């Protein structure tokens, strides 16, 4: 260059200053774009949570009506001659409480349809619990019909013409009277968290689906965790490096990417058709989801095992530890946080899975809380799917409330994952 030896570069020149300014502008712009992305993502999340919560919060409350019930043995069809306690209890549980409620509602509220069709169930349970109520008159809060529910929650738009409100003028009048008399209240919907599905929105509960989900996840975890970890240990520590293990590795990686509905078809073909297992049972759902979760656990466990520093392996081998001792005493403890994180990510995915379970019959309407892994059950995401399909107006908020329950379960699982990871990492 002609100017070699002498420096002609002027760092203060106008062009140079303009260049510096442009650089700063670009830097700021880049940072703002990044920040913008974060804000957009966060606001989507906030919007989602807000919508679900504002829709779903109503699902945890329900309208209840006060009725003075006269537990007349004659109406209930219970004979006073039932002397033994056991016989009396059987008689009460067999008794038909519907006429009792209907007549009381007709007499006191002027319309028996203001009370939920299933309100008698809770009344009967109360009497079964305490048979001494028979013959007495009590004021009880009974579950109101869906109409009462939406009126009490202010979900009726009175700006609309009366014939488009979805609620008859007579019902509105009855509701107003009840409110003036203080015979209607919005109370915590305990049934939502303790009951299973129902065709009546005011009686439908999430408990059955939650138990179904827990049973299904227990099966999934019980199958996929030991299998996945053992597979990972074998492939990492014992398997010779050859064509066959390469093929196995590629297959596992591909399995992790297979759409979940394919696993549903597999479960349908294998567990239901070939082995003839019970449809809709958590055991089948759990096995199907275990197939889906397995590759996730294998891959994350292998990564965790691979990331254990080789110096630890050398140290243990150098002191004369056997292969098994190296694995159990050194590799797995160090790899455990990674293995657990992978497992919980896999389980979270399985917990939110709907498609494969539809194929193995877990979309059935199940009105009982399952008591074992072979009883018909449904799971949370399928319950959400089913309710979102319902026409009843009360199911809208039930759907959102169920989503809130599912999200709570998922978040607590992730919290457990974070807790376990921190707990085991501290040993390092």
């Amino acid at each position, binding site marked *: 260059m002609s100017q070699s030896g002498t420096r002609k570069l002027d760092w203060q020149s106008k062009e140079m200053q303009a260049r510096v300014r442009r650089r700063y502008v670009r830097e700021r712009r880049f940072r703002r774009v990044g920040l913008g992305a974060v804000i957009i993502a966060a606001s989507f999340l906030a919007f989602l949570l807000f919508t679900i919560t504002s829709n779903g919060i109503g699902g945890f409350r329900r309208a209840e009506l006060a009725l003075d019930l006269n537990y007349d043995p004659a109406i209930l069809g219970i004979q006073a001659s039932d002397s033994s306690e056991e016989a009396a209890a059987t008689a009460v549980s067999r008794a038909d409480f519907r006429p009792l409620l209907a007549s009381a509602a007709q007499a006191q509220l002027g319309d028996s349809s203001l009370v939920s069709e299933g309100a008698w169930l809770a009344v009967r349970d109360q009497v079964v619990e305490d048979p001494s109520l028979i013959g007495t008159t009590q004021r009880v809060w009974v579950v109101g019909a869906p109409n009462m529910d939406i009126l009490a929650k202010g979900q009726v738009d009175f700006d609309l013409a009366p014939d488009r409100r979805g609620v008859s003028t007579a019902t509105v009048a009855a509701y107003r009277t009840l409110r003036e008399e203080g015979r209607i209240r919005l109370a915590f919907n305990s049934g939502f968290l303790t009951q299973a599905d129902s065709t009546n929105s005011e009686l439908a509960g999430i408990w059955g689906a939650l138990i179904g989900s827990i049973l299904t996840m227990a099966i999934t975890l019980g199958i996929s965790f030991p299998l996945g970890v053992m597979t990972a240990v074998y492939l990492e520590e014992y398997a010779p490096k050859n064509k066959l293990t390469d093929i196995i590795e590629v297959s596992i990686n591909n399995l992790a990417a297979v759409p979940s509905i394919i696993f549903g078809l597999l479960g349908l073909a294998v567990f239901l058709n070939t082995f003839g297992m019970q449809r809709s049972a958590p055991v089948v759902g759990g096995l199907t989801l275990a197939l889906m979760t397995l590759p996730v656990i294998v891959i994350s466990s292998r990564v965790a095992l691979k990331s254990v*520093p080789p110096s630890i392996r050398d140290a243990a081998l150098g002191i004369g530890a056997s292969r098994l001792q190296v694995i159990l005493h050194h590799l797995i403890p160090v790899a455990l946080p990674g293995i657990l994180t992978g497992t919980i990510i896999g389980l979270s995915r399985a917990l939110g899975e709907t498609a494969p379970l539809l194929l193995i019959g877990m979309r059935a309407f199940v009105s009982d809380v399952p008591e074992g892994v072979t009883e018909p059950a449904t799971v949370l995401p399928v319950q959400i799917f089913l309710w979102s399909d319902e026409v009843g107006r009360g199911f809208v908020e039930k759907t959102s409330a169920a989503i809130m329950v599912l999200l709570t379960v998922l978040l607590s699982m992730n919290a457990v994952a974070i807790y376990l990871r921190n707990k085991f990492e501290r040993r390092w």
Partner: protein
Amino acid sequence: MPDATVVHDEVVMADGAKMTARDVDVFYGEKQAVDKVSIDVDSHYVTAFIGPSGCGKSTFLRCFNRMNDTIDIARVGGRIELDGKDIYDPKMDVVQLRARVGMVFQKPNPFPKSIYENIAYGPRIHGLASAKADMDEIVERSLTRAGLWNEVKDRLDESGTAMSGGQQQRLCIARAIAVDPEVILMDEPCSALDPIATARIEELIDDLRGNYAIVIVTHNMQQAARVSQRTAFFHLGNLVEYGGTEAIFTNPRADRTRDYITGRFG
């Protein structure tokens, strides 16, 4: 064809060598890392393996406790004996072998457990101590021999990985001697340490001499001269010269040894 190994008379042993290697070859896949090496290791001395990077000295060292077994592509040929028994014999239990022939690695590698557990692990898996008191004694004795007891006796519950690099390496030496080995292999034990920590390790090696046959691999010639009584010079997978340390450093007989000692390559 490389020149034949020059072996000084003073290291030739009629019998009684702790470990002997005869015509040992090591292949990594197609590549030959060690070529027909024969050497005797004596219990009473520290033997140093020196040579430039990639000369096969570490690879050869790892044959003595069969650590090369853990590398899939490594193949070892020839014969290595411990007290006259072939260690590559299928009947030889590799787990016991590694307890008898302990190893200290290049990078300090304590287990991510407490100091106590680091020492107690070896004796426990080999069933050397059943009672807690016995184990306490082994831990104290090993740490004392490694010159670490006074520094750590009040914090045996702390993690072994929380110590300084030099302390970690002495902990690894203590861990190796806790199972009462006959031979200790050291693979560049000071290459990750500062000069002060290095000096302490060298002192320690000197203290341990006589109780164990010690083989140390080092790329540091001054270190070999300081700590060893026997020196073997390796180059390109061959054992070039083996003799008393003083003779090797003052009066090398092979040309390649002389060139390396005087710093002409390496």
